[in-house]
């Protein structure tokens, strides 16, 4: 018997080993997709500045029921069925709704999803591409700083070229005409190898990114320190946190309320330092008064901002365990009413999503006025409000060199449709006949249920981060009347436009696009700088002294990069 068992065991082990070999395509259903995701560097779908057709609220809205209604089936103009593989966030929530089914039928496709999380996204993309084992659509959170790596892959033949002549795909052509990044960052020798998902930012944002604070306005009112317009200095913020800790309007227990929490990426990207940095140019390499490229992070001014951020941490205003938060504990603390302020991608879309759905509808806050975006003026320099210009896209998608012509054209057809007005309506409202009906005058009847405030409740989740994202980010969902976040931002935009105190730190495209050997190797020392800032903030050391030591430690490498930039770009 023992011998038989040994034989069976050996056979099982050998079969198990065979099972470890790579399948033709990974099965999303069996991969550990259900990992906790955190929203990192979330894109901010832009405000739609155009007048949208008002929804006809007077008509009786039919309940949206995924299971009972007969789904409007899309007919496909494609005879051949293709399976397209792509990496996605939240894979377990993707490709399961009636809307997804409509899309699959329309383009006669199936999805083969490669799950990624915010934490392992870049690592997986790097491993897949370098091993030539990538999905058909390689979708990643590529930053300008990753340009050298992207170009290395593209030049080596990793991706198919996006055709120069996009006349067959007019909506993609329109986006190409609007974007800067496609030519600046994603082309090699004039050939485009990556498709940037346009942010479609409103003009007043000046292509800036939203690393700003949300705060408990109700607590500020409770301690008598609320200011109309939600614009504060750091002295006022510190006084508010002290008062809230002492008076405990949130009922956390005296002294237990946390002052500031943030997204884990906001700590990693030292946002607390950058929002207090007075440099009018973008952080990173900029031209000094002599026209020479210098790394701003290597200046004394930047050390001032570090020192201030350190004082916030050491003073107990910032959550002490923020440094160890690799997930979204910071947001969870804010969500649970344990923290007064939250630093992250607190855009109108974020308020519409997380705050409206979880805090307001979840009953965590008393009303929809209780949480609001806030401006905190820089402590250093001229006490302005700084936002940093970002890439004009969020995420880049490339098509694998292994993809054949038919699949390639199908992907571009899909993207072109998603970038059309019809596609936009699909993204924000869903499927005609199921989620909305069209009136003769061009307006829409949304068929979703409404909450007690009269706002529509979307049956779809996480629309911004899925298989549809690579084509383009969507403009605001005016048709569905989710106006909560946009209304909250009206005073913020007004301040940015009219106060004269708003400074957008510009994106130096020429440096970002540079691909020289020294810059490619060291970049702007982001990882080293991030590590050093964390060390300084958490330790009770002299920030200027420590920063000077750090600058000394990278001096040779930094000089090599600066020399390269000055020799080639000056």
């Amino acid at each position, binding site marked *: 018997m023992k011998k038989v068992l040994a034989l069976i065991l050996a056979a099982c082990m050998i079969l198990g*080993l065979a099972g470890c070999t790579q399948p033709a395509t990974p099965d999303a259903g069996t991969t550990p997709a259900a990992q906790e995701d955190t929203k990192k560097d979330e894109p901010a779908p832009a405000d739609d500045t155009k007048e949208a057709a008002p929804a006809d609220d007077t008509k009786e809205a039919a309940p949206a029921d995924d299971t009972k209604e007969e789904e409007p089936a899309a007919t496909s103009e494609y005879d051949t069925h293709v399976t397209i593989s792509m990496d996605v966030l939240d894979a377990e929530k993707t490709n399961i709704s009636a809307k997804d089914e409509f899309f699959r039928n329309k383009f006669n496709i199936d999805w083969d999803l490669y799950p990624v999380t915010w934490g392992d996204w870049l690592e997986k993309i790097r491993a897949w591409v370098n091993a030539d084992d990538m999905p058909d659509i390689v979708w990643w959170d590529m930053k300008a700083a990753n340009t050298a790596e992207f170009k290395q892959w593209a030049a080596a033949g990793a991706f198919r070229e996006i055709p120069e002549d996009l006349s067959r795909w007019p909506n993609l052509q329109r986006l190409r005409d609007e974007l800067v990044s496609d030519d600046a960052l994603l082309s090699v020798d004039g050939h485009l190898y990556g498709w940037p998902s346009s942010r479609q930012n409103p003009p007043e944002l000046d292509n800036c990114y939203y690393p700003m604070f949300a705060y408990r306005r109700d607590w500020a009112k409770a301690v008598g320190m609320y200011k109309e317009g939600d614009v504060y200095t750091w002295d006022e913020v510190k006084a508010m946190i002290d008062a809230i800790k002492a008076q405990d309007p949130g009922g956390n227990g005296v002294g237990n309320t946390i002052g500031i929490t943030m997204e884990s990426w906001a700590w990693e990207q030292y946002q607390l330092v950058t929002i207090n940095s007075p440099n009018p140019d973008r952080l990173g390499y900029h031209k000094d008064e002599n026209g020479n490229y210098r790394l701003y992070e290597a200046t004394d001014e930047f050390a001032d901002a570090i020192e201030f951020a350190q004082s916030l941490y050491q003073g107990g205003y910032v959550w002490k*365990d923020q440094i160890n938060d690799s997930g979204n504990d910071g947001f969870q603390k804010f969500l649970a009413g344990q923290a007064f302020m939250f630093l992250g991608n607190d855009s109108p879309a974020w308020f519409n999503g997380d705050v409206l759905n979880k805090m307001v509808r979840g009953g965590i806050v008393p009303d929809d006025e209780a949480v609001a975006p806030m401006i905190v003026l820089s402590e250093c320099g001229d006490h302005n409000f700084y936002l940093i210009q970002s890439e004009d896209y969020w995420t880049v998608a490339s098509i694998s060199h292994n993809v054949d012509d038919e699949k390639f054209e199908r992907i571009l057809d899909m993207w072109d449709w998603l970038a059309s007005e019809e596609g936009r309506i699909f993204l924000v409202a869903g499927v005609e006949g199921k989620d909305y009906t069209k009136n003769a005058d061009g307006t829409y009847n949304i068929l979703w249920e409404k909450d007690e405030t009269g706002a529509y409740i979307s049956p779809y989740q996480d629309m911004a981060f899925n298989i549809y994202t690579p084509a383009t980010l969507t403009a605001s969902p005016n048709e569905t009347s989710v106006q909560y976040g946009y209304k909250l931002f009206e005073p913020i935009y007004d301040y940015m436009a009219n106060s004269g105190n708003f400074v957008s730190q510009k994106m130096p495209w020429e440096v970002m696009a540079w691909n020289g050997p020294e810059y490619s190797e060291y970049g702007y020392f982001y*990882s080293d700088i991030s590590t050093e800032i*964390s060390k300084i903030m958490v330790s009770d050391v002299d920030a200027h002294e420590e920063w000077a030591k750090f600058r000394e430690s990278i001096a040779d490498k930094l000089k090599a990069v600066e020399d390269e930039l000055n020799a080639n770009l000056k």
Partner: protein
Amino acid sequence: MDSSDIKSIQNAQKAKNRKRILKRIWQLKWIYLLMVLPGLAVIIIFRYLPLPGIALAWKKFTPTFGAKGLYSYLSSSKSVGWKHFRSLWREAEFWTATKNTFVISLLKLVFGFPFPVILAILINEMTLKRYKKTIQTIYTFPHFLSWVVVSGMVLNLFGDTGAVKSVLTSINPNWTSNWNFLYNSKSFRPLLVVSDIWKEGGWGTILYLAAIAGIDPSLHEAAIVDGANRFQRIIRITLPEITSLIIIMLILQIGNMMNANFDQIFNLYSPPVFDVGDVIDTYIYRKTFQSSTALDYGFSTAVGLFKNVINFVLLISANRIAKIFGHDGIM
């Protein structure tokens, strides 16, 4: 008898021989050797097949696309000579990581290595069988938790909003006015050693308990007759009888000193404790996957090669020393 008859007799003989060999294999329990095959396959696939990749330590990694062949990247990657090693020598972080690896491994060796031996002896001395099994289960259980879970427990216990601080604050708020336990260079290494002992100490006892169980009971019976007490029997019988195993385990641990437990450290460390907690494995990981610039497998391979060469030297040295002192060693 014609040639066809001879052939058929020969074939029958061959079949008989084959049957006999199979029968002999079955009878002699050689069948159990089949169980080695999967392990062997794993070692060949994951340990030997990647070995040519070591050449990347002297190359600048360039990916290839569409090329066939397991090692096609080697031909596409240009040689850079000893560049990666020269870069390595210049990197202060690398030397910090090397020093930390040695120090942390040494601390674990000094404090962690004796723990399972002592615990195994103590468990063996327990007379109540049920109590003994319960204790053994309690000590062994943490081994089955991943370091992600254990580090979460550590963070929840010792973090700013953790249980330990809450209790201490309730006693005296002054004690916790500048609470910095997890991000303090002084407390980080002890935290690593203690949490490692807590998680793995019980699991380590299994081998020693098995060795103790194999000691001839007549030795103990004779010692009891001679009037030896429990402590004397432990010192004079149990310990000497398991010394060979202790030496083997010691050699293996010394030969593994450059692996300071990536999982544990990666899940517990943060930038403020890099100066005492960043080890070679975490350094390689950060340089390979968390760098903001293009990854360089060549540099990472050079660091990994350096680490493994040191491990190899340590293993051989420890084995030689064991032999000098009259023990068997592992080779």
